[in-house]
């Protein structure tokens, strides 16, 4: 070997071996390290970009969150023994209560939310609401997960953690909720120029998206909610849970105000309103047409020009509006095998 060549060997060996040595050192230093598979949810062009989360969305994270969502282990040793998230959030009903007795908000497109539950008592992002669900609602006993034959490895693979905490459970569930994205209703396909609506559905859409029905102000396209709070005039006096947002803020102007629910899959999520008072969409439309009641905190948007609190839809208009509401059903979402119970 010439003198020049010998001079080159050392630096070249350092360059080649250096990085591999560093990698080995890092792996030895962190036995919990993991490599995850990134996942990207493709959204239609008219959708808002989802907010940025601290955790990247990964296949492993979503799979873990899915399993936790359906697992009654989440409630073991807590006040809701025997329940899983999915007990009250059934995929076939757009992740609302399976027997239709009470109205829980559907787990659909919650990634865009900044306040949660009917009165918005939890604010923040998905991870914040999951912290609440894990710590306050289910009061998850993480020792149950730590001693489980499979969960420790699943958490390690998904989150790079060897010691499961409630925060880890919230992180995994938050990833799963990001996966619960609905973008394939008939109305979506119409917006993407992929499918026509019937004449009746178009008529209903016109009512929805005009002052005739004035639904769009609160149920804004495409999320079909403005994620705000409104007193829509269900009653004129308020007690108990009916005080709504007022219970959180103490602001009299928010008396009787509740979070606008998304209308995605609304045909599948009866009963309606925060207290489930309406059994059918027809009853809901009747209420908006002529049943709105005045109170000092009635949302200004409920006051209609020249007609007081009524929009006075005809029977045909009501039927058309209901027909349009049915176009918001995302059958691909409620039948998606990747969202089913994995057990």
């Amino acid at each position, binding site marked *: 070997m010439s003198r020049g060549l010998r001079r080159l060997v050392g630096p070249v060996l350092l360059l080649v071996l250096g990085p591999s040595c560093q990698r080995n050192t890092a792996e030895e230093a962190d036995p919990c390290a993991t490599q995850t598979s990134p996942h990207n949810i493709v959204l239609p062009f008219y959708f808002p*970009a989802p907010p940025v989360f601290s955790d990247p969305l990964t296949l492993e994270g979503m799979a873990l969150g899915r399993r936790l969502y359906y697992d009654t282990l989440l409630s073991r040793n807590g006040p809701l023994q025997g329940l899983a998230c999915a007990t009250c959030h059934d995929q076939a009903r757009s992740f609302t209560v399976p027997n239709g007795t009470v109205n829980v908000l559907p787990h659909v497109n919650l990634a865009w939310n900044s306040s949660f539950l009917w009165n918005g008592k939890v604010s923040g992002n998905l991870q914040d609401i999951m912290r609440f669900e894990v710590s306050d609602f289910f009061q998850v006993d993480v020792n149950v997960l730590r001693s489980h034959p499979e969960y420790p490895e699943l958490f390690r693979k998904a989150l790079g953690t060897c010691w499961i905490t409630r925060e880890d459970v919230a992180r995994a569930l938050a990833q799963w909720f990001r996966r619960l994205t609905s973008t394939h209703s008939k109305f979506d396909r119409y917006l993407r120029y992929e499918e026509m609506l019937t004449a009746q559905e178009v008529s209903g859409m016109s009512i929805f998206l005009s002052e005739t029905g004035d639904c769009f102000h609160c149920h804004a396209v495409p999320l079909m909610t403005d*994620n705000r709070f409104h007193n829509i005039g269900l009653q004129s006096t308020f007690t108990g849970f009916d005080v709504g947002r007022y219970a959180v803020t103490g602001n009299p102007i928010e008396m009787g105000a509740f979070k606008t629910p998304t209308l995605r899959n609304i045909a599948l999520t009866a009963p309606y309103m925060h207290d489930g008072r309406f059994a059918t969409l027809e009853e809901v439309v009747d209420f908006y047409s002529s049943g709105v009641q005045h109170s000092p905190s009635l949302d*200004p948007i409920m006051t209609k020009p020249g007609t007081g609190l009524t929009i006075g839809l005809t029977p045909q208009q009501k039927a058309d509006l209901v027909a349009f509401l049915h176009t918001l059903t995302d059958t691909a979402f409620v039948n998606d095998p990747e969202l089913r119970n994995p057990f």
Partner: protein
Amino acid sequence: MNTFRLLILPALLLLMACKKEGSPTPAPDPVPSNFTLKLEHHVDGALLDYDTLRYINEAGHAFSITRLEYYISGIRLLTADSSDDDPVIPGPFYINGMASNSFDLGAVPLGEYTGATLLLGLPDTLNVTGGLPNTLENVNMAWPVGMGGGYHFMKFEGHFLNSGLPTGYAMHLGRNENLPQCVLQQPFTVGSSGGTVILHFNLNEVFRTPHTYDLSSGSYSMGSMTLMALLSDNCADAFTIACTP
């Protein structure tokens, strides 16, 4: 020899660092770079206090404000000769009255200005459905295609006492025909030390001059070109401008 080699790199670095000193001194930047745009909301001089029926409008109604959202765009800083070369801050800026509304403007040309003009809303080039990025704010400001498309220029809502009864009002403004072109007649100076351009929006001006707006006969404006035209006219003098170091 080795010592010589070791010294070469630092010496080169020093030479490179020194090179600038030998080059001609660049001219001072003619524009400051630390200007902020700030929106402030008040009712006849009092800072806006939401949700209280404490204000009186020109028609004599006590009113409150529960919601205020709008866009501003095309802020033109007027020079004495008011030429086409007057600096324009294009925007648009989405304003939620309940949030803190400060925007980094970057460089604003120095000078003495006689006033400004701005659009309370969006230029027609942007006021089309899909004309703005699909942020949550923008999709909630959408103006339905069937009603003309584009976006709400403003949502201004609250309650007023209508024969003693708290009643809602919703002053929604949209469509190109109703775009308020606001004139701000306060002279101001943009100095070299940077600062803040403050736009004050007096909400009571929405209800007066040139038209006395009577909420009891028009509490809901969307869908009424007549009511929106009144609001558009009234908004023309609703803003004032100031610049603070």
